[in-house]
């Protein structure tokens, strides 16, 4: 009896060590209610572990280390947590500011940066140790005010690009070009438009695009030619239409790009805007169910999936990118917050916060394959983001 128990005890940790596995089909789902995340496996479609103690996760996002083993979790409370998804445990956690909104990882994977609301600015950390490398205060204007920072992404050449919400500016911090004082060279672009609310970089890393809340249009910066400055595009996209109150800010991350078109959410309108990728001209407005929050292309670009702001947030629509028509409407549950495709797009995972579940759909048949119970799930992030510029 005793011997048997001993064997079991010995075998337990051993078996854990012996199960070698990769992380390419893993991901994490943020659980807002409990300040935790679940590590999930998209091949088996199961949850593998839960990691607790991540703080206030409203609006949490994550980036991955380039070995796809560590997730850096950016919490609203200013927490930056490095999670080992293989072990299902926290490696390190720091509180880096009062209030943060998102983060990015550098091209070489050695720097993790976090954008903050209060005090506004960007903090840059050593990805290995989470030691502070540099603090970039977002100070603007004559009175030296600090701006909230949004739309932080990585760009080729060890650069981080971000937007200053209060200032209406876009900044580039270049860590390949460090000044005499040891700080990253900063290039500032002013008067880029009113209240940039989020930003993204095209998958090739060339164009940084900020969405504007305070006016119609988008601000585009060509990172191959920063000397040409920021251009405004689609400045009149809402002309003639009535702008409604916005109950949830749209997101530009994971912007939908197909070969010919870019799809993006119209602010305060029940429309998805389609524009020509070559000349940034509007091609079409697609009338949709509500105000879009995420507009995401399936990895092959054949479909675009859209979710909506409160109070129309129980619905997801699928747009066919050839006909530019809605081909499917799904009801994944109350308060759909996020959608994430598997790397080659055969499945999409959709979180429904108030329904307390994540539903996995087959993107060819639109059949629900399985549902996983979660505590107010929000963001879903698969590890293939580790190798994509801007994610």
């Amino acid at each position, binding site marked *: 009896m005793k011997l048997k128990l001993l064997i079991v005890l010995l075998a337990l940790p051993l078996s854990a060590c012996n199960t070698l596995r990769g992380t390419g089909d893993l991901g994490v789902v943020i659980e*807002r*209610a409990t300040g935790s995340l679940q590590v999930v496996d998209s091949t088996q479609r199961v949850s593998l572990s839960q990691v607790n103690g991540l703080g*206030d*996760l*409203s*609006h949490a996002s994550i980036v991955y280390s380039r070995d796809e083993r560590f997730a850096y979790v950016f919490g*609203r*409370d200013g927490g930056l947590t490095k999670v080992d998804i293989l072990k299902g445990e926290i490696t390190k956690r720091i509180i880096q500011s*009062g*209030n943060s*909104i998102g983060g990015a990882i550098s091209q070489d994977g050695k720097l993790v940066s976090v954008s903050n*609301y*209060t005090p506004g600015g960007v903090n840059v950390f050593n990805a290995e140790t989470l030691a502070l490398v540099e603090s970039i205060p977002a100070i603007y204007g004559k009175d030296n005010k600090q701006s*909230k920072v949004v739309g932080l992404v990585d760009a080729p050449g060890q650069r981080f690009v971000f937007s200053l*919400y209060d200032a209406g500016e876009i900044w580039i911090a270049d860590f390949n070009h460090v000044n005499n004082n040891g700080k990253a060279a900063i290039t500032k672009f002013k008067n880029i438009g009113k*209240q940039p*609310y989020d930003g993204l970089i095209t998958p090739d890393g060339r164009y940084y695009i900020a969405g504007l*809340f*305070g006016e119609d249009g988008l601000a585009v910066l060509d990172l191959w030619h920063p000397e040409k400055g920021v251009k405004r595009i689609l400045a009149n996209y809402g002309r003639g239409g009535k702008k409604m*109150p*916005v*109950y*949830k*800010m749209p997101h530009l991350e994971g912007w939908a790009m197909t070969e010919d078109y870019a799809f993006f959410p119209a602010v305060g309108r029940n429309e998805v805007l389609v524009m020509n990728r070559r000349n940034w001209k509007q091609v079409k407005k697609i009338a949709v169910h509500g105000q879009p929050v995420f507009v995401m292309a399936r990895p092959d670009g054949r479909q675009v999936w859209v979710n909506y702001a*409160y*109070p129309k947030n129980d619905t997801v629509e699928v747009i066919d990118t050839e006909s530019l028509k809605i081909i499917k409407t799904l009801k994944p549950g109350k*308060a759909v917050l996020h959608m994430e495709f598997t790397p080659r797009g055969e499945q999409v995972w959709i979180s429904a*916060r*108030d329904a307390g579940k994540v539903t996995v759909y087959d993107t060819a048949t639109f059949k629900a394959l399985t549902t996983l119970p979660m505590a*107010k799930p929000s963001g879903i992030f698969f590890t293939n983001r580790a190798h994509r510029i801007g994610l």
Partner: protein
Amino acid sequence: MVKGFVIKSISVMSVFIFCNLVIAENNISTQRSIELNNLLVQDCGSCHGMTMKGGLGPALTPEVLLTKPRDMITATITHGRPGTPMPPWKNILSAEEINWMVDTLYAGVKQE
């Protein structure tokens, strides 16, 4: 004369309807208060932070609110702030429900 009478009776009726509404909404059901709390934490929370410590919108904690007039807070929730992302809630929530929210904010929002 006739016109005046019609207008009068409409205004009397609307007062009547209004009173009815207020009476009905004075007792916000437990179920509704759970929904409203969820709305505060989750949906207001998406801009103000789930713990109301601020985000795109300012902090709405009891300490911060103490320094601000209650009428202004109620009016902001009701009508929103044009030119900023703060939306009006009057088409979604009744005056009583907004009042309940203001009470809850001043007392401190309970996390579920």
